[in-house]
């Protein structure tokens, strides 16, 4: 097991280097002048300005030299200056990641609770009404383009009813959260508000979280629901369940005590991957709801040629994905002793 973990961790730097090379290669589609334009904010006043920038950042050097320079800076902890976030990339990661984590957690909880419950019901009543309902509900959710669902939510609950606004906080709440009397322990507004004992801020943050969390939940319910259903169907057809029934256990006990724990093993692993997926892939949701987190930043950086930010975000996301995959694999082996990692 330890050997397996070490071997998987050794792959991490290889994949990260591969990712950065990939992005560097993509940027070579732009010529030095275009890449120099990434560093200026207004049209240059004299013609030599662009040449100066090319000189200063070594943009006309061969690609491998540029890459080595960049790698050297990264190893020394300097990920560069993000143009879109208006702060160092490292600072922006610290700033935006908690926002995305908060959104991911707030949508993750309903996905798991309702997804598992509905999945189990669907399996117990296989081909019954609940099963058919769950199937239609999840296929429609799975097919819903995230931005269309988000726009519909905004149309109903913001434009028409004025209940739930986009953004992350109201102006008055933003002023308090960033003032000196409010301690930002985690960067997650709902949690910080509770820690500061400010229920009004908690309420405001929650009001902004409901729609994006609901959108993410609806388009992702299908996955957990389907996995729970098919895993539960597998389990309740096994012999030991028949034995449990044969010895006269009430159906409720058979389901809850005998079938459910075993059926939850794949759900736990898929749930772990889903959480990472939520952390990595909220580009569209955060853009639609103007929720300033990693996804919003990533979309802005990509659309504005902010290469330094894109590199930082990608390396961060890539590392997160690989580590999470590892944790999930190990957890899988731990939950199910029949699995051996080799």
């Amino acid at each position, binding site marked *: 097991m330890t050997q397996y973990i070490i071997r998987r961790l050794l792959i991490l730097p290889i994949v990260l280097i*591969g990712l950065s090379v990939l992005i560097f290669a993509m940027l070579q589609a732009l010529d030095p002048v275009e890449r120099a334009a990434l560093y200026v904010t207004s049209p240059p006043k004299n013609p030599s300005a662009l040449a100066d920038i090319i000189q200063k950042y070594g943009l006309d050097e061969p690609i491998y030299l540029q890459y080595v320079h960049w790698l050297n800076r990264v190893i020394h902890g300097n990920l560069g200056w993000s143009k879109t976030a208006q702060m160092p990339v490292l600072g922006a990661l610290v700033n935006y990641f908690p926002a995305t984590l908060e959104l991911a957690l707030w949508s993750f909880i309903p996905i798991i609770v309702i997804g598992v419950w509905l999945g189990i019901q669907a399996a117990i009543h296989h081909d019954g009404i609940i099963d058919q309902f769950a199937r239609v509900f999840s*296929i429609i959710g799975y097919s819903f*383009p995230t931005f269309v669902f988000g726009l519909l939510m905004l149309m109903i609950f913001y434009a028409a009813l004025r209940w739930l606004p986009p953004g992350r906080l109201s102006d008055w709440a933003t002023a308090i959260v960033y003032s000196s009397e409010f301690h930002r322990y985690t960067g997650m507004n709902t949690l910080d508000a509770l820690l500061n004992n400010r229920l009004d801020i908690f309420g405001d943050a929650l009001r902004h979280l409901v729609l994006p969390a609901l959108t993410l939940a609806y388009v992702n319910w299908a996955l957990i629901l389907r996995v729970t259903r098919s895993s539960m169907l597998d389990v309740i057809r096994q012999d030991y369940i028949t034995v449990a029934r044969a010895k006269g256990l009430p159906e409720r006990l058979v389901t809850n005590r005998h079938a459910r724990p075993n059926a939850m093993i794949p759900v736990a692993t898929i749930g772990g991957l889903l959480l990472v*997926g939520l952390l990595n892939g909220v580009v569209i949701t955060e*853009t639609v709801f103007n929720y300033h987190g990693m996804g919003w930043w990533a979309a802005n950086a990509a659309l504005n040629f902010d290469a330094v930010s894109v590199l930082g975000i990608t390396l961060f996301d890539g590392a997160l994905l690989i580590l999470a995959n590892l944790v999930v694999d190990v957890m899988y082996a731990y939950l199910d002793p029949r699995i051996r990692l080799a």
Partner: protein
Amino acid sequence: MAAVEKPVSQVNTTLRRPVARTEAAHLIRPRSRVPESLRILLRNPVSIAGMLIVLGFVIVAILAPVLAPPAIPSEPFQIPRDGYQAEPRPPSARHLLGTTQGQYDIYYGIVWGTRTAFEIGMIVTGLTVLIGGTLGAVSAYAGGMVDEVVQRIVEIVLAFPFLLAALVLATVLAAKIHNGLVTGMIALTAFGWPGYARLIRGDVLAVKEREFVLAAHCIGARGPRILFRHILPNAMYSLLVVGSLDIGTYVLTFAALSFLGLGAEQGYADWGQLLSFARNWIPDLARFWYIVVFPGAALLLFVLGWNLIGDAFRDALDPKMRGIRGA
């Protein structure tokens, strides 16, 4: 979450990885079983509903010149404008489904957008399946170093968040190629293939060990011939099924690119592009509901149609789910 913003093929391979080895065995089945799963598909009301929806879109795509005659016959994908006023206008006799920002006719955009959707879906799926399938098959057949290198590349590309990767590539290419449709499709293809490479690799590895392959070796057939004439025809069924059912997902991802401003140009008959106008009118969407609801419904139905077929297909392919009633 990635599961939504990524093609199904990739999600499945990453999510299923811990169990993939045990599952690969029943993905391979003798060809005689194929018609059987097709028959199941035709008896399943869910898949029939899906096929009817897709068929409906095929008819709309074919009849587009009749349903919405283009103003300039040489440029049918240019949505006609009725003035240049910014504010959308509600459905009327002149504009069945209303006009969106800049007075682009929504009905026309939806009808001709159907052709765009099929074009994008089929080209991207065809290319990703071809690239991923070839690389995966060759890698599995050759084994050794080739396999190792291809698998590492697959791993790296899969570690790149799909939508972000496509965004970056589309942005970079947009500076070179001034055709949003082409850049979007290249971006999706460039990062869409690894899932298929993984899928076919497992199947080729299984078929490679069968007796008829050994027999082909014995009569002196060479590597490429064995791979492409003997192994692939027996190993590509699940790739073709999964691939063709991803058409809906690729159309959805392309629409997301268009929505972010990277796909089709303004005024091009494309659903995502039509929907992107809605971003400018979010506080007023209650009044301008038609700029979201109509193109959104077209996109949702299209993806839904493919997913309904796909759902039934997966049931039909999974022997554990066959013929079981009640628990």
